[in-house]
């Protein structure tokens, strides 16, 4: 059956021999064999049977099996829902959570379920979603979804990597001005020329003076930033 590992499944009837194939896959994974070519050939032959093996009720949660499943994610998604697939793989093998998430986000950067997946897989939820979408047309919606999910730390991180107002605007819309203060402070630290106070005023309302003072208290290392607003803001 070594030929199976090379992707030669000629003469195999997947549905009839599913238990044999499952046992082979588990044994090979446990032996440290690479199952990618086996799974690719299996997917071409019968993607439904492969989905049963990878993510069905009797699927085995071995890292080798999960990684091979990710290699045929496109084929598996044709026969089961994407969110169901990645959720199942993550449940089967939490150790591979970040790898599962990375593939899920890369393939579905605009899907809302990736935030729930991220919450389960990442120490800093939202980090992968924002990292993968940064610089793409999906970044805006990724910021929005992370803000709605309350991923303040990831939004704070991403603004340091790409200084712009996008994460702050999303956060203020989703959670209000005060909960977004850490993101505002990170935005100022990343680029003090960004119109942080003006943007927040335009989203929540004009009387931002107390909020701005709270922001200045967090950006003491940038006296120039506060000075820029000295004549525009009143004592709260």
């Amino acid at each position: 059956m070594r030929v199976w590992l090379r992707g030669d499944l000629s003469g195999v009837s997947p549905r009839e021999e599913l238990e044999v194939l499952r046992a082979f896959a588990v044994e090979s994974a446990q032996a440290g064999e690479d199952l990618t070519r086996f799974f690719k050939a299996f997917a071409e032959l019968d993607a439904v049977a492969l989905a049963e093996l990878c993510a069905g009720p009797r699927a085995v949660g071995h890292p080798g099996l999960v990684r091979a499943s990710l290699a045929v994610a496109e084929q598996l998604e044709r026969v089961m829902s994407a969110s169901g697939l990645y959720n199942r793989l993550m449940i089967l093998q939490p150790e591979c959570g970040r790898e599962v998430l990375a593939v899920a986000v890369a393939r579905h950067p605009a899907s809302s379920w990736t935030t729930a997946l991220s919450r389960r897989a990442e120490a800093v939820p939202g980090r992968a979603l924002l990292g993968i979408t940064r610089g793409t047309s999906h970044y805006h919606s990724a910021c929005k979804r992370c803000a709605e999910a309350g991923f303040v730390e990831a939004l704070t991180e991403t603004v340091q990597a790409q200084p712009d107002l996008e994460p702050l605007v999303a956060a203020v819309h989703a959670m209000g001005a005060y909960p977004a203060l850490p993101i505002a402070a990170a935005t100022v630290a990343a680029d003090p020329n960004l119109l942080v106070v003006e943007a927040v005023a335009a989203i929540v309302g004009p009387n931002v003076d107390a909020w701005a003072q709270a922001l200045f208290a967090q950006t003491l290392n940038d006296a120039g930033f506060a000075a820029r607003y000295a004549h525009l803001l009143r004592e709260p």
Partner: protein
Amino acid sequence: MTEPILWGSPSPWPFRGSFLGNTSNGRQVGLAWAGRVAGNAPLDVAFRAGRAVDDALSDPQPTDRLRTLAAAWERVVAVELGEFAGTLSLLMTATDGDGVSITGVGLAAVWAGGQGPAREWIPPGHPLLSAPGVPATRPGALSVDVAPPLLIAVAHGDPMPTFPRDPDALRLGSGVWR
């Protein structure tokens, strides 16, 4: 005091160029305002324009209700708004022990709120409803003995919203927050 608020524009930046405030001259007359200017300008330009009008209105006011509004208009007219002068929407109220005087420009509607569901308070065609812009001549004022606690204005050119019933939600939708 009757509190004027201006409903936010239907955009990702609902309060760009907005301003909102009140002042009083001792206990005799209270002046309150809500407005928007340069609502389509870049964020920093709109913010500065709004603050400029706000600062002008924040100066101490005379002691008489109508003279308070007249002085307020003088100060607004004196603000250098340049190309954005034609974009001003403003609702002002002056309150004293005898009643309330109301004036404004650039408003499409003024509704009453704060006591049950918001209801239309100024009928269509009333002189208080007008095109936007710093007025060439001082607008008149509507004086009443009793006014609702909240007056919600909709800026000229904005679509008519469905107002929430809750006064706090009305304020939030008008950029009043803490």
